[in-house]
């Protein structure tokens, strides 16, 4: 697709291809004055300046900090803190629960996204055709998406209390709920709440994919006498695959990076079973005051994000429909 071609086209001047995040806009924006013939490029200045000072420079600082022995004693003179190379990375991998946190974050995000996909697609299928009350149902479907993560976390934290409504409801079914916010089942709670707040995004993208399917395909299916099951399986779902995969990648990125939901839902100190990467990194900085170690963890989490991120950047059309059609 267009995005793939442009990757190669940009490569000579695109900076370090292994760091497509914050490090990139700086060189390209600085270069523009020399190469562009337009007159309005100064309009990029406010945004560019802000992004450089609050994203690009801190990004570089984070990379530097991850190589320093930075704690509460050396913090305020951080530029002269002892340089220990990859020491923080080695410690993070060998002597902290980083690998466990990576596993928890990654696996919970994958399972939650897998749960969210069928829900989102089903919701899209039910609201594809107009009926009375459809717009109300569409709005209701999107409620979990609209609620702020800190509200979702607060609410589910109360619902999942040992004596809370969730366990009372389970008890009427004869099931002993037990602990949801601590111990092994907290992992399940994290997945369920993430899926609950994540599926409407899948719904949105699946619905827009559904509405881009040409009517003639429906007609062709009807002419061939296809029943709904065959039509769904052989025509509709294959055509939905691009939008659903995009939704899956975005959900995955969002869930792996999600700090607020686990932070509010389980609190700090986080139960070991749901000690996700962002929370671990945060605690290492702002509770244990091991700033260098925390920076190394954050860099490692960026590397993890990179895989789905690169897939995502190749999927999204950079230049709009007219350029890629």
């Amino acid at each position: 697709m267009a995005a793939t071609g442009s990757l190669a086209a940009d490569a000579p001047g695109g900076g370090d291809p292994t760091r497509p995040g914050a490090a990139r806009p700086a060189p390209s924006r600085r270069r523009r004055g020399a190469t562009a013939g337009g007159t309005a490029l100064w309009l990029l200045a406010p945004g560019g300046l802000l992004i450089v000072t609050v994203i690009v420079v801190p990004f570089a600082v984070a990379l530097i900090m991850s190589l320093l022995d930075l704690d509460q004693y050396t913090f305020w003179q951080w530029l002269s803190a002892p340089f220990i190379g990859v020491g923080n990375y080695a410690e993070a991998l060998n002597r902290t629960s980083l690998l466990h946190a990576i596993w928890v974050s990654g696996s919970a995000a994958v399972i939650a996204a897998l749960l969210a996909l069928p829900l989102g697609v089903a919701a899209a299928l039910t609201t594809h055709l107009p009926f009375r009350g459809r717009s109300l149902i569409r709005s209701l479907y999107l409620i979990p998406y609209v609620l702020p993560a800190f509200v979702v976390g607060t609410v589910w934290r109360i619902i999942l209390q040992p004596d809370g409504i969730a366990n009372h409801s389970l008890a009427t079914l004869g099931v002993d709920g037990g602990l949801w916010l601590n111990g092994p089942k907290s992992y399940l709670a994290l997945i369920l709440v993430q899926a609950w707040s994540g599926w409407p995004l899948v719904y949105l993208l699946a619905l827009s994919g559904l509405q881009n399917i040409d009517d003639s395909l429906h007609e062709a299916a009807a002419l061939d006498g296809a029943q709904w099951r065959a039509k769904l399986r052989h025509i509709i779902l294959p055509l939905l695959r691009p939008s659903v995969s995009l939704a899956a990648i975005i959900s995955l990125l969002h869930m792996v990076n999600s700090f607020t939901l686990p932070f509010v839902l389980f609190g700090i100190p986080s139960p070991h079973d749901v000690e996700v990467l962002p929370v671990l990194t945060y605690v290492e900085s702002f509770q244990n005051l091991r700033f260098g170690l925390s920076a190394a963890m954050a860099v490692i989490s960026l590397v993890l994000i990179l895989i789905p991120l690169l897939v995502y950047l190749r999927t999204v059309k950079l230049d709009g429909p007219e350029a890629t059609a």
Partner: protein
Amino acid sequence: MNSVLRLLPRPLQIILTVVLLTIVGAPVGYVFLASINTDLAVAAGGVWPEQVSFQNYARIWSTVPLGRGLANSLLVAGTVALACAVVAVFSAHVLVRHAFRGRRTVLRALLGMQSIPGTLLLLPVFVLFATVGNTVGVPTIGTRWSLFVTYLTFGLPFSTWIMVTYLRQLPDELTEAARIDGAGTWQILLRIVIPLSWPGLVVAAIFAFLLGWNDVLFASVMTDVDTRTAAVVLQVFGASQEGGAIPPYGQMMAAAIVCAAPVVTLYLAFQRYIVNGLTAGGVK
């Protein structure tokens, strides 16, 4: 026609709709019921209030500084929304109407930047603000200004991308005609681009607003007691209630609803624009 386009048999469609609405509605409905119930009954796991009372909504304001939190959130998120939309339309106009080398790299960076973990930037941003504050002698950490600048910047990649996807739907001819008539960049922006793109601007502003309203990570370390946003007030409230005799769950539910209300209202008012902006951009 309708039967040709039909995807699911009617019974299945009804069953699925009911199931999905239950998944959404059961927790949300419970939260409403709990917010008009007594703390005691909520803590005991009761669902239906024996007597409906809106006391929780009255008492919450004195239990926690929620009013101040909401004011801080509104102030910060509101100004971020306005500033972000303006800066985003500037950048997006250039990115859509001017061809320059590295343009696609900038576009890709805009998308990539949204996925940088906040935890990676939190510490350096904190250090940089503190250092600037110490050298210049103005307070930074703990002020609303530091939050404003932070959210504005983090909102920019997303809002700019939304504006890029919006502006390129506008025909080139409009700006070209104005240019031929001798209009400068400034005039083109003010007279043509901004008036024609306000649906996009609304979406860009709303998402910047949501970013500020929803953030806990940066607000939890960059605010003090007086500048705390509603998100941090609610988070601290929730975290500090463990082990009490009767946890004020009813009040907490009321507070959660109060914190969600502005966001839900914004969303309901601009739902169509938001959904279009989102699906056109292919972003979260």
